């Protein structure tokens, strides 16, 4: 318990850790035959590394880092299309900072900007709307990516643009959803997963009901978790207690922020604007059924895919991963980040080769910052 002093409530943390150890013993898990728990969310991955939780828990427990980092699962072809749009002289291209740094085949959006394209980093799609209002003679495209947590924001912006009849605003929708990749991973015979720590802020929007299939159809426990290190440890314990008693249920550890039914206004806005695609491409995971969203016909004039004839399914070309990049093997848990030949050499957070090194939520960036490449954290006094 080298780092337990770091917790805001070290006494409680020690107690939970002792219970985790007890549960692992009782389950009979060992270093050679551990319990595999996947934290789905990239924010959780970041917190696990930052607080060294993977080192604090007993050896019989292994965290598998899930696909919940939006820029990490973005296929290179999408970045190429962003660059193509951004390089049009009539376009102002807007997106979040992280997305600007993801490498494309020719260049990233950041490089396109340096080469003269009008690419602007925004904090919110609301900013893209405002840029559209102020530049009526330009096409303003917002590159929308992310899971259910950010989907309501672009949906509400499209509704707002529709109300204002803001015809020079469009959204390049690359939103994805959490349950389908979990199903795909559970269907993969090579994946060993005993339970899940569920993404708290996704459930803040969609509630906990969409995860029922994990317990009902696959017999695996899932606990929706907060982001404090203690939240994560408590959630891990709740998963282990389910395994120990032979239960498989959806539980909510983060009820102080997550209502079981989610946020009804957000759900209604997303259903009004978006519908599921038949399938969608994920970096490292391939095509997954019903895992992406597209803009409904009713809002077609705000859909950059139809306005500029780009997007998933429009071109048949397959864009390979960059030479030497093992992101897909890391994504599917086949190797740990340091086992990639480029890790920390040809691929660093400053000069990322693969997407997992771009965001602080990516497993490679988290590993690089906290996972042994740098000195271990000093315990608090």
């Amino acid at each position, binding site marked *: 318990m080298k780092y337990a002093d770091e917790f*805001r409530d070290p006494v409680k943390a020690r107690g939970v850790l002792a219970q985790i150890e007890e549960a692992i013993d009782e389950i009979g898990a060992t270093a050679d035959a551990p319990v595999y728990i996947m934290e789905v*969310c*990239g*924010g959780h991955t*970041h*917190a696990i590394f*930052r607080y060294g939780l993977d080192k604090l828990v007993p050896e019989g427990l292994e965290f598998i880092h899930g696909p*919940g980092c*939006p820029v990490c699962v973005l296929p290179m072809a999408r970045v190429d299309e962003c660059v193509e749009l951004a390089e049009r002289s009539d376009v*102002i291209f*807007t997106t*979040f*900072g*992280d997305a600007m740094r993801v490498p494309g085949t020719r260049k990233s959006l950041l490089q396109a900007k340096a080469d003269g394209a*009008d690419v*602007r*980093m*925004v*904090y*919110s*799609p*609301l*900013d893209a709307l*405002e*840029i559209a209002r*102020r*530049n009526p003679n*330009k096409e303003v495209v917002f590159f929308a990516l*992310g*899971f259910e*947590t*950010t989907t*309501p*924001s672009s949906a*509400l912006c499209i509704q*707002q643009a529709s109300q204002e009849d803001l015809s020079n605003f469009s959204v390049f929708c690359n939103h994805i959803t959490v349950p389908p990749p979990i199903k795909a991973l559970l269907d993969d015979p090579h994946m060993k997963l005993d339970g899940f720590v569920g*993404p708290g*802020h*996704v459930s*803040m*929007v969609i509630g906990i009901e969409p995860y029922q299939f994990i317990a009902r159809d696959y017999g695996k426990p899932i606990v929706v978790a907060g*982001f*404090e290190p203690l939240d994560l440890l408590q959630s891990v314990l709740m998963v282990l207690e389910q395994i120990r008693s032979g239960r498989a249920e959806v539980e909510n550890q983060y009820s*102080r*922020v997550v209502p079981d039914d989610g*946020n009804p*206004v*957000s759900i209604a*806005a997303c259903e009004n604007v978006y519908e599921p695609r038949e399938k969608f491409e994920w970096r490292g995971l391939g095509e997954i059924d019903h895992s992406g969203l597209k803009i409904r016909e009713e809002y077609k004039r705000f859909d950059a895919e139809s306005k500029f004839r780009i997007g998933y399914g429009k071109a048949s070309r397959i864009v390979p991963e960059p030479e030497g990049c093992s992101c897909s093997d890391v994504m599917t848990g086949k190797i740990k980040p340091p086992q990639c030949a480029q890790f920390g050499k040809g691929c660093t957070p400053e000069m990322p080769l693969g997407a997992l090194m771009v*965001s*602080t*939520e990516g497993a490679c960036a988290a590993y690089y910052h906290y996972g042994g490449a740098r000195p271990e954290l000093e315990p608090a006094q």
Partner: protein
Amino acid sequence: MCLGIPGQIRSISDYERKLALVEVSGVNREINIACIMPEDGDADSLIDTWTLVHVGFAMSRIDEKEAALTLELLTELGEVQAEIDAMRAAESAMEQAT
């Protein structure tokens, strides 16, 4: 992106578009409050409320203690500065002439 940041609602800036001025770690920023509007539609009742803000949208009402705890966590993860930087960058992105 998925972590969000706590902010305190200071005033309602646009009742029709459901926008409010929110203070996030000392920075004032206009955000959308559609997702946390009370059922009776009284936006003013949200003033002084703490909320979790995701990419410019208030997604959940939280209490002051939860806000403080989350801010402490986000500071340790380096996320507070990243959010503030993004808000500042967005201001200049909006003002930039073509």
